């Protein structure tokens, strides 16, 4: 289920004094099963873009194809698109509302008018995908859970719709390092097991570098880069000039090179360790 965006333009409050161009001629393609990182400064158009991908916003001009279907053409049912493209908003736990975890996760599938058995399967499976124990948690009130658990339940609610594309807007904001790593690992294994396409919006460059196949960098409503992490993090100066950072490791490599330390590119701590050892040992052996 590829995503194809062609010349997408979105203008808020068009033809008023508040007119604001949020997306300016954006075109890209995402293949089936890719893991994409979406980064950009606040106001770069990230949220506007992801809201187009499941039809919450309509383009001012341009086209969006999900699986070769133009999602804004008149004969396409939005319900159908929203089922295929799951969107997890920032702080999704604010959207929990039911009395029990089971009911909350079942809300989507129930609206699809599925059989009780199918709903139960989906709820169980979705909760397990996000690392929660179905039997232990299903009858609890979502409001009695910890922050990290609430967030997982909210994500499970989206997964219960069995989306082919999952978009997560800052899924780790406000979590502690342990909670953050747990959720990210679950997203990673979800991507592997279910072979769904994932778009992860995040400000944490270290996580992005570690997880994704390609990074889409937005700046002032335009695509600045769309490439692999190792190529993108070479553009440190440009990234900083548009209000983004690079992982500490990438910065280290850059500084070392400036001082004439002959080190190859790497994006993770593990890779950097090996690269540094190669340089130091190589020197000693020579």
């Amino acid at each position, binding site marked *: 289920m590829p995503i194809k965006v062609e010349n997408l333009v979105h203008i808020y409050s068009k033809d008023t004094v508040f007119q604001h161009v949020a997306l300016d001629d954006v075109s890209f393609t995402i293949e089936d099963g890719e893991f994409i990182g979406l980064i950009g*400064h*606040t*106001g770069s158009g990230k949220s506007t873009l992801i809201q187009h991908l499941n039809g919450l916003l309509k383009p001012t001009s341009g086209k969006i194809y999900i699986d070769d279907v133009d999602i804004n053409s008149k004969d396409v049912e939005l319900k159908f698109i929203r089922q295929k493209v799951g969107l997890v908003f920032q702080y999704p736990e604010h959207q929990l509302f039911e009395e029990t975890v089971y009911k909350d996760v079942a809300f989507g599938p129930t609206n699809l008018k599925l059989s009780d058995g199918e709903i139960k399967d989906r709820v169980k499976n979705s909760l397990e995908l996000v690392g929660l124990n179905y039997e232990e948690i299903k009858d609890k009130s979502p409001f*009695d859970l*910890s*922050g*990290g658990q609430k967030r997982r339940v909210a994500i499970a609610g989206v997964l219960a719709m069995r989306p082919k594309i999952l978009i997560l807007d800052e899924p780790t*904001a*406000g*979590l*502690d*390092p*342990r*909670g953050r790593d747990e959720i990210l690992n679950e997203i990673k294994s979800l991507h592997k097991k279910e072979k769904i396409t994932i778009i992860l919006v995040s*400000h944490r*460059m*270290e996580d992005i570098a570690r997880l994704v196949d390609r990074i889409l960098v937005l700046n002032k409503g335009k695509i600045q880069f769309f490439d692999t992490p190792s190529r993108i993090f070479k553009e440190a100066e440009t990234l900083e000039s548009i*209000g*983004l*950072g690079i*992982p*500490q*490791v990438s*910065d*280290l490599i850059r*500084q*070392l090179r400036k*001082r004439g*330390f002959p080190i190859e590119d790497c994006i993770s*701590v*593990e890779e*950097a*360790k090996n690269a*540094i*050892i190669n*340089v*130091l040992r190589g*020197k000693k052996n020579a």
Partner: protein
Amino acid sequence: MIKAKNVSYKYSNQEGKDYFALKNINIEIKEGEFVAILGHNGSGKSTFAKHLNALLLPLEGTVYIDGMDTREEKYLWNIRQTAGMVFQNPDNQIVATIVEEDVAFGPENLGLEPNIIRKRVDEALLTVDMFEYRKHSPHLLSGGQKQRVAIAGILAMKPRCIILDEPTAMLDPSGRKEVIETIIKLNKEENITIVLITHFMDEAVNADRIYIMEEGHVVMEGTPKEIFSKVDEIKKLGLDVPQVTELAHMLIDEGIDLPKDVLTVDEMVVELCRLK
């Protein structure tokens, strides 16, 4: 400036069961210090922070702010003026529709003369570098800017201590940088005591001292170099170390001669070039 002696606090959950959020906490922070408090969610950090301006009162033990016992009601307003608090969500802290009116809210409630309020508001906005936005509407500002307005609102109360509870959790990288630079400036230039609660280790690196909390206890205390050189212990507590510190640790394990307490990219570059 801040002294917590054997402080304990407990909450009750829905089933009426009690659990201790703080257990026998002893923390002392001197005037002008910059202290970071780390710990994962539920470790008691925020509960402790709320004790520092008498939003919560200890069940056992005592909290002194500038020598004032927080349990004595007569000190309440003095304490809140001495120790100001900044919270995580900038949108929950802004009350007015114009930036400068928001900053004036505190001093107005102190019943100050209008010309003094004017002076304080201008000074506070200049300090956080938001003066040119004084006539703007807060809801059109970026997260980092809103958070700086919230800090200005506290500054206008002329506090000697500011407690910030995850002030950058909802901000993007440039917003975080703005806020952290502002905090460092307040500490270095205005000599304001800073208590920064955070999940970001690169922010804690700037502090003079770090306390780490776990299940309501203080489990580690020391300078950033002392704390982060204990990579394994920190990771066991579910916390991060800066990437370069982790890298240094891995290289040491491989027999490379590096100091354990490398915290910044610059230090690491110097060390590695020395070995080359």
